[in-house]
């Protein structure tokens, strides 16, 4: 435990700083400089004009969920309940049914994610052994008029495409 100890100099004790006013005026000069710069040319503001200018979402961003598919269009999910068991917010509700396309034995007939409960922790993605659930849609704002509209159904989850290429997603650390 021989961490470096850096002793900070205590400020504010000498007369120059005790007078307050000089330091106050220096601070006011700084802020007024900002004001004047922005007032004379507001293109220098450090803002993103949000609804028109969207933020750049990286592949690691945990956005709204989606369910992935095989190349032939059948869903990867095998209804193993790993994500539902692992979910700390208990927002996933799966109902398993018999699989008909011959890949495995089970598939979900119901897969609901309550986005009002979800905390976007990404544990479901980590738990999934089939890489069937991902949070790479890049959707960062979910809005709706009723509570019910926030419950994502199986069809919604399957219909949403990923926002990134497979390569980018893998590079993101998944």
């Amino acid at each position: 435990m021989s961490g470096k100890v850096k002793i900070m100099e205590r400020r504010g004790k000498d007369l120059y700083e005790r007078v307050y006013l000089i330091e106050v005026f220096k601070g006011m000069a700084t802020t007024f400089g900002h004001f004047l710069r922005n007032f004379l040319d507001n293109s220098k503001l450090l803002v993103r004009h949000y609804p028109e200018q969207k933020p750049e979402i990286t592949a690691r961003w945990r956005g709204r969920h989606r369910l992935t598919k095989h190349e032939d269009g059948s869903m990867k999910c095998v209804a193993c309940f790993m994500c539902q068991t692992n979910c700390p917010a208990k927002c996933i509700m799966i109902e398993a049914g018999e699989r008909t396309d011959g890949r495995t034995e089970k598939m979900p007939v119901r897969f609901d994610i309550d986005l009002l409960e979800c905390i976007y922790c990404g544990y479901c993605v980590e738990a999934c052994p089939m890489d069937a659930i991902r949070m790479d849609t890049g959707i960062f704002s979910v809005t709706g008029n009723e509570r019910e509209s926030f419950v994502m159904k199986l069809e919604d989850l399957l219909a949403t495409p990923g926002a990134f290429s497979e390569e980018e997603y893998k590079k993101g650390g998944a």
Partner: protein
Amino acid sequence: MSQLDILLIVSRVCFGAFVPLCFIAVCVWMERRGAAFFQDRSGPNRANICGFRAGGLVQNLADAVKLITKEDIIPGHLKHKFYFVLAPCIVFCIAIASFAAIPFADVMKIGGKEYIMQTIPTDLGILWFLALAGFGVYGIILAGWSSHNKYGVLGGLRAAAQVISYEIPMGLAIVSALIVYGTVNLTGIAQFQGQLLFGFIPMWGVVLQPLGAIIFIVAAFAEANRTPFDLAEGESELVAGFHVEYSSMKFGMFFMGEYVAMFTNAAIIVTLYFGGFQIPWLATETLVAYARPLTVLMMLAVPACGWIFCLWMSKNNRSHYAHESDYRDREVAVYTKIVWGIVAAIDIMLFVYLIAASGGDADRVLVMFLQVFTFLIKTTMMCFVYVWVRWTLPRFRYDQLQRLGWQTLLPLSLLNIFITSAVVVALS
């Protein structure tokens, strides 16, 4: 009473009542956009009526609609509901009433009569302000106590202690100013500041009383419960302080009262230390004597100002992102027309004055309007200083606040009185 008397009384009362109310909108707008610009943000610039945003002023309208239509809650556990409702009314009414004694133009001499341009033509001026400023805090204490809420009570107690500590340096700073001016009449004080020191420096209070001005301004900040002295509502420790239980328009009254108090304090600071309605180097009689050349000068200056404003607007009112059919372009076109319309109207009025009415009483009226304009400009600039300080300085801790009040400002203001009286006695 002649018709002119009645007209002037009515216009004075209207000025005293409505100008502070109008300046609520201006101050709130200045606070929000100013704060944004100080912090490199753009501030509220979306609310609009048919695409016209008036630089963000429409946001005030949206806020007002929100505040009025919200649920007006009176908590069920209160024992004194009457006082709970009374408190915001006190804060708001006192703030407006304290503007009443402030002169917004020099004494106007029309038809051999003199009209004092204060809402209440009283000689007591500064005493009226002091009395009401001290009374305003009763509303805050009452709000804190009647909320029956620990945060409310703490906020109210802090406000009480703070106002008591800062009333004293404020009063003493005023005493030393009164020694210099030799009158408590605010019109007299403003007239005194129309003189020139050594023949070329305007004899403003801030030149004669620099220390007093600083003490008064600091104390006025504390009186108005503005940052860095807004301990009464310190949200980091007291949630919202005295108005924690208030909602809807009752909160709106506190909010508006705060901004009216800010405007009134700015006006009293301007009147006491920054020459009031006086235009520097141009006293009232000089203005009246040179009314015609000044009018010609104004007829040139007004289009120049309009031109600069339009240039600034067309440069800054543009979208900084790709946008098909930029609605800001339409806005700029309409605003430019409005600005040139106002410029033309002012110039035509001045021209008519030059041709038809110059000389005699019309000069006095013109000078009165000029002085009202000067007074409002100065007050707006002082309000800007309030905003500026708020977004520069962090909040004081409670013990630091009391130490500053009692150990620094009080001795300094006493010292200021001694020095001032010594100089005044030595010079007279």
